[in-house]
């Protein structure tokens, strides 16, 4: 069984169609890169898996999107519970206006967990998972805004990990970071793969090559090509894929 799957998924913003008949299946414990020029629908596709698109007024979604074989758009699905299965990381680091500790504890608190010891332990494990513990362990009560951009982004990943999702969705997670921070996040993605299924939207072709097992190339709301990253980059079947990855457009 696939971890993530979409069958003939279509997304409409009002009258315009953002995604057309996307069929894609992703194995668990892999990293999948979604690439393509701006406006190709890759972010919209990513947001199908935690139903984040639902927040947009006037959106319409058809087809099937499955997590562990379950259609997450079926009637009666508990959306809040569903979203706990996925952690999301955004383009710009966006820690909440809270302390470093409370940022990571937030997901636990809003889900009704009050056991202080449990929260403390989970926060520590999560921060350790993103290799940030040594840098912040003495200032957990300080504002998260005091951290550098790269640290903030790792904190945001820790925040997502604290609710123990099985899937991590990342929307251009390093595009606002400097090269060193980017390298750290990429390394982290590599390590997290052992426990999570990761989908990354990226504009950076080298990054897709470095971190992902499979790559999906989107263009104008369609899935043009999906294959192992190696195949996509060395032997693309489609002319448009080749043009894009060789930098002839995009």
């Amino acid at each position, binding site marked *: 069984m696939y971890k993530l799957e979409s069958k003939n998924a279509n997304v409409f913003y009002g009258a315009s169609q953002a995604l057309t008949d996307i069929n894609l299946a992703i194995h668990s414990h892999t990293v999948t890169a979604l690439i393509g020029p701006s406006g190709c629908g890759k972010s919209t596709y990513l947001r199908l898996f935690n139903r984040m698109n639902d927040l947009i007024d006037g959106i319409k979604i058809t087809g099937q999107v499955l997590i562990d074989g379950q259609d997450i758009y079926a009637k009666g699905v508990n959306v809040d519970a569903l979203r706990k299965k996925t952690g999301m990381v955004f383009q710009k680091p966006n820690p*909440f*206006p809270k302390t470093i500790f409370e940022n990571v504890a937030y997901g636990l608190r809003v889900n009704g967990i009050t056991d202080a010891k449990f929260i403390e332990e989970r926060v520590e494990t999560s921060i350790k998972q993103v290799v940030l513990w040594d840098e912040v362990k003495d200032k957990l009560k300080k504002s998260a805004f005091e951290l550098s951009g790269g640290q903030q982004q790792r904190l945001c990943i820790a925040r997502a990990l604290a609710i123990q999702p099985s899937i991590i969705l990342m929307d251009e997670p390093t595009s606002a970071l400097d090269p060193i921070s980017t390298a750290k996040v990429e390394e982290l993605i590599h390590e997290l793969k052992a426990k999570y299924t990761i989908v990354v939207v990226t504009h950076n072709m080298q990054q897709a090559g470095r971190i992902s097992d499979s790559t999906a190339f989107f263009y104008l709301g369609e899935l043009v090509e999906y294959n192992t990253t190696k195949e996509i980059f060395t032997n693309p079947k489609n002319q448009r894929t080749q043009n894009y990855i060789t930098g002839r457009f995009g």
Partner: protein
Amino acid sequence: MNVVNEDKLAKSKKRNQSIAFFILGLLGYFIVAILLIILSFIVYKGISVINWSFITQMPEDGMTKGGIYPAIIGTLYLVAGSMLFAFPIGVLAAIYMNEYVKDGVFKKIIKQMTNNLSGVPSIVFGLFGMSLFVNKLGFGDSILAGSLTLGLLALPVVIRTTEEALKAVDNTFRQASIGLGATKWQTTRRVVLPIAFPNIITGLILSVGRVSGETAPILFTVAAYFLPKLPTSIFDQAMALPYHLYVISTSGTNIEESRPIAYGTALVLIIIVLITNLLANALRKYFGRKVKMN
């Protein structure tokens, strides 16, 4: 082939820029100058009567002598009362509008209505307040009726600035919170509001400024011509600075003689607004530091 004389072009560009800057600068200074002229005029005329007893004594001799203490206290009560009413309602309404209502006809209508409300002349608010709060609900001429009327007047300002403040909060904060399984209300209360709070305070500043200077809405709802004692309950009438100023400048017992007191009153009113603004600004900075963005 060179059809453009680079040298000439650069010169004319530079000249145009200088002219534009000069005009813009001039207009900027003009505005500052107007403000300074008004302020210094009031200060010049009013400073002589201002002393400790002026702001702590009751008016005497048909308001030609003595202080303006009850008017100061009345204005403070009215400002506080109207904010107590307008701020929670306005902020909650704005939260509902911005976080909950989907885009559409309904939202457009509410928005348009809010805008129209802020365009209603203040005297109309006064008449409305009189017929509803004073007569219909039987509050009589009272601080309660005046505060509610002023609150209505401040409501659109509070709603609009709060909405703007909420809109300025980056959507990824909401998405991050929702993505962790938080409900909309948890997201709004724990993430969106703290970020928007410094800017919401701005709305409070603006409305306090507006409310404290209004005369028309309190004319029929609370203001006393002359009441040489402090109000003891919210059902009492009260004097208020703007109305007091109006009274002693138009229908006092001896207008000429009370002229300095009028300017003194104006000066006190300006100072009160100024202090509220500074206070609110400090609050805004304080909360702004707490939620400082990177």
